[in-house]
């Protein structure tokens, strides 16, 4: 760290057994990939959540981004929350973006859009869109037979990484309507002071994929006093196929996991899990802030 300025932005990326996917994700977060990103130093903290074969980093030679790898021991199946909190504790940037799933690469305008959106409100809760690479959601029945080789061909078809602007062309959004119901976001950005005020992720949420810990974090952030939800349009994170807990579970398996998360939430919070229906503010990476819709604040459980 010697000689480096303190980072302005910290990105925390949790990963478990993602030797194929993680390098692409990290590549997508570097200054040479992120256009319109702030001319400010940032750091990327990768937390290996107990991969049986420890993850390794490729050497990056981009002075304005510092990439660090820390490893937590464990089987990786208990919960991702401690790994995320560990990374959060190491973060030094004023703005912190947390990737609960290290298999999700970013679109090339994501970081700049989130940075600019964060300047719009002192307590911004910035949600980004989730996509799956492929012609359908990776857990859907129609994706039987889709594999990593097929995904590699798709990425090559747009010339990724140079063609990263076309990621959405080969991908499927988790939510068709970007202003619709929102249950969670893979890349969640908030000021570090707000992350700390909220206490980070609740480690009581356990189970495959962390149970409902990511959903809970997002709902608590949206419900915290004086926070403002800002949805980023025109950018997103793109899930690479790796047989993950949810995306590898099949349609019924994914529904079962959501049901289990709902039960867990009910037990721990004592109230039903409610997805966010409020639209919030919309920030388009090219058009900027779109006029905040009226009546955008609604209870969300």
């Amino acid at each position, binding site marked *: 760290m010697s000689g480096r300025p303190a980072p302005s932005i910290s990105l925390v990326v949790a990963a478990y057994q993602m030797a194929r996917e993680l390098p692409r994700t990290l590549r997508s977060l570097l200054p040479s990939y992120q256009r319109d990103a702030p001319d400010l130093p940032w750091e990327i903290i990768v937390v290996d959540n107990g991969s049986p074969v420890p993850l390794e980093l490729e050497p990056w030679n981009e002075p304005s981004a510092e990439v660090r790898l820390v490893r937590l021991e464990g089987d990786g199946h208990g919960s991702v929350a401690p790994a995320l909190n560990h990374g959060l504790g190491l973060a030094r940037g004023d703005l912190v973006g947390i990737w609960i799933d290290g298999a999700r690469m970013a679109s090339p305008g994501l970081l700049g859009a989130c940075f600019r959106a964060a300047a719009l409100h002192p307590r911004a809760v910035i949600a980004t869109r989730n996509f799956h690479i492929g012609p359908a959601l990776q857990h859907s029945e129609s994706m039987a037979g889709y594999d990593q080789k097929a995904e590699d061909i798709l990425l090559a078809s747009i010339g990724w990484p140079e063609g990263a602007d076309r990621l959405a062309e080969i991908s499927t959004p988790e939510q068709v309507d970007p202003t619709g*119901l929102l249950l969670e976001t893979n890349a969640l950005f908030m000021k570090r002071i707000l992350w700390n005020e909220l206490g980070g992720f609740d480690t009581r949420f356990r189970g495959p994929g962390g149970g409902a810990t990511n959903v809970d974090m997002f709902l608590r952030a949206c419900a915290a006093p004086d926070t403002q939800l800002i949805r980023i349009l025109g950018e997103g994170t793109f899930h690479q196929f790796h047989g993950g807990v949810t995306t590898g579970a099949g349609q*019924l398996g994914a*529904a079962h996991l959501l*049901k289990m998360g709902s039960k867990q939430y*009910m037990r721990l919070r004592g109230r*039903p*899990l409610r*997805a966010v229906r409020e639209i919030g503010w919309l920030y388009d990476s090219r058009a900027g802030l779109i006029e905040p819709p009226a009546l955008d604040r609604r209870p969300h459980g």
Partner: protein
Amino acid sequence: MLNDQPPSRSVFQEWIVNYIASVIDLEPEAIALDRTFHDIGMDSAEVVIMTGVLEEEFAIEVRAELPFEHPTIASFLDALAEKKLIS
């Protein structure tokens, strides 16, 4: 609500109508029993979440896909009755 006896259909119906009404911010009277969850305004994720909540609330087990196979409140209640999860 942990009982040895399964909940009655009327109790369960009242619960599910009130639950949906609170999720989609409507009066319970506006929830029609013969409309699909989707047409009422429930997202598929919200329907799955509902199955988890009702499992906790009534101490029963309901497959996550059951409300999709029986997509109205009335038909869902019929399915639960057939499985003797409600009386």
